[in-house]
């Protein structure tokens, strides 16, 4: 039985040669549609990334009392590094803050005399890339958590950043993701219909197979495999074309003040993209079979 199934699956691949021009044209159509869809996905992905970088982060600045010991500071900083959604943490002892101040002033001021009596407190600048729905509640809870740390004198954060993050999350939820879903549906329908039309061309073959006593699965399996192969080839070709576009355009907008670098689709999105096309290839072949 396994040998027969394997034989039929191979037949699904080799059957493509029986109508080479139709298959080549179908493959070209699937590839181009998938490429256009992928291009749109690539733009949305990069827009998403850029907006997340620009507006999806919230920063908290934590100040410790001047008399807080170094050991207590180090252990608290270590604990802070483990916080969920923390994208970046910058920590400064009072002396480090003083050095940084001098550096930023470009050597025009000498504050070395303050070393023994440094008024700058130890501080930590925490940047979070938050993924939660209720950012207000999250910000309040994080604020209380940070303020309750031993020796902490003050915690501050910019509510404007929270508004920006919330605005971006709303924009992402209401525009980008629906657009990606819509794109997925359009891509699936066009790819599915293209493959279905090419499979309908095999109506004569299906009718003959039925006439000579082929079981239903014997007819279905090679056609489903053919649909999957067309989808897979079209999807892979589209992803390769997208890679070519990404490589040739990645530095196009990488200049001041934009500094945008075009990124390729992450592996998970590329695989999901491919899976949608393969699944549509199989489904459309199945629909075509039901219509013959």
């Amino acid at each position, binding site marked *: 039985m396994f040998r027969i199934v394997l034989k039929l699956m191979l037949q699904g691949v080799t059957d493509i040669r029986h109508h080479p021009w139709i298959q080549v044209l179908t493959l070209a159509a699937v590839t181009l549609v998938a490429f256009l869809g992928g291009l749109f996905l690539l733009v949305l992905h990069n827009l998403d990334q850029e907006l997340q970088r620009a507006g999806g982060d919230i920063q908290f600045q934590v100040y410790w009392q001047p008399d807080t010991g170094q050991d207590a500071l180090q252990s608290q900083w270590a604990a802070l590094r483990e916080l969920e959604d923390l994208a970046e943490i910058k920590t400064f002892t009072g002396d480090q803050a003083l050095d940084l101040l001098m550096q930023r002033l470009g050597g025009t001021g000498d504050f070395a005399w303050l070393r023994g009596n440094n008024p700058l407190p130890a501080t930590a600048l925490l940047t979070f890339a938050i993924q939660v729905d209720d950012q207000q509640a999250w910000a309040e809870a994080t604020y209380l958590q940070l303020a309750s740390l031993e020796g902490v004198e003050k915690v501050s954060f910019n509510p404007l950043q929270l508004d920006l993050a919330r605005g971006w999350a709303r924009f992402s939820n209401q525009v980008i993701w629906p657009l990606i879903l819509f794109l997925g549906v359009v891509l699936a329908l066009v790819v599915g219909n293209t493959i279905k039309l090419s499979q309908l061309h095999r109506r004569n073959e299906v009718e003959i197979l039925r*006439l*000579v006593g082929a079981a239903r699965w014997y007819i279905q399996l090679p056609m489903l495999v053919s649909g999957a192969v067309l989808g897979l080839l079209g999807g892979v070709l589209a992803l390769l074309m997208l890679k070519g576009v990404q490589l040739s355009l990645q530095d196009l907008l990488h200049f001041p003040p934009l500094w945008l670098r075009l990124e390729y689709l992450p592996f998970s999105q590329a695989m999901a993209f491919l899976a949608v096309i393969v699944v549509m290839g199989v489904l459309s072949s199945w629909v075509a079979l039901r219509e013959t």
Partner: protein
Amino acid sequence: MISLRHVSFSFGTQWALKNISLEIGKGDFLFLVGPSGAGKTTLLRLLHGAIPLKRGQGTVAGFDLHTLKAGRIHLLRREVSVVFQDFKILPERTVFANVALALDVRNMPRTHSERRVRAVLRGLDLEAKAHIPCAQLSGGEQQRVAIARAVVVGPQLLLADEPTGNLDRELAMRLMSIFLQFHAHGTTIVLATHNQEILACVPDAKILHLEDGTVHWTNWTMHAAS
């Protein structure tokens, strides 16, 4: 081999077969005759499960048409082969591949099926063209390919729908001699035609004349007739 009792079939409100009863034994040769639209093709389609039997009762090659599930129709078609006027072959595939198709779907080992296909092609004078795509064959040759595919499986029953309809007289007579060869080997044959000339090729054949979906006359007594 074939038993039909009070079989009727309609396409919507249009009756194609009305109260047909018929008994055909193993090894019989039956001609279905009558004008176009008489119901010959519908009756043949009913006999190989292309349309469902909803009214009346019928068995073909041991299969009860009334209770035959869609998932088991292929089993009936492994016993009943069909030859059509329009051949129904795959033009881009070779003669060999077209004939072997009927054995492939039965998962017959390749060496065994090759032997059978070659023997049938030899019998039908097609061996020299085994590896030529069917699109390059003449109409008569294509019809012989269709017959080869039908008989290579050794069916109990062979149905033929106007097999000589597209052929000239000489080819039609040659085709009839091929059918007679298989009939001589015990195959039951039902052949629909309105070519009166070929009826004379099989003097002992049963003839059933259909008109407007009903049995108009027969040349034998139908014991099961209504």
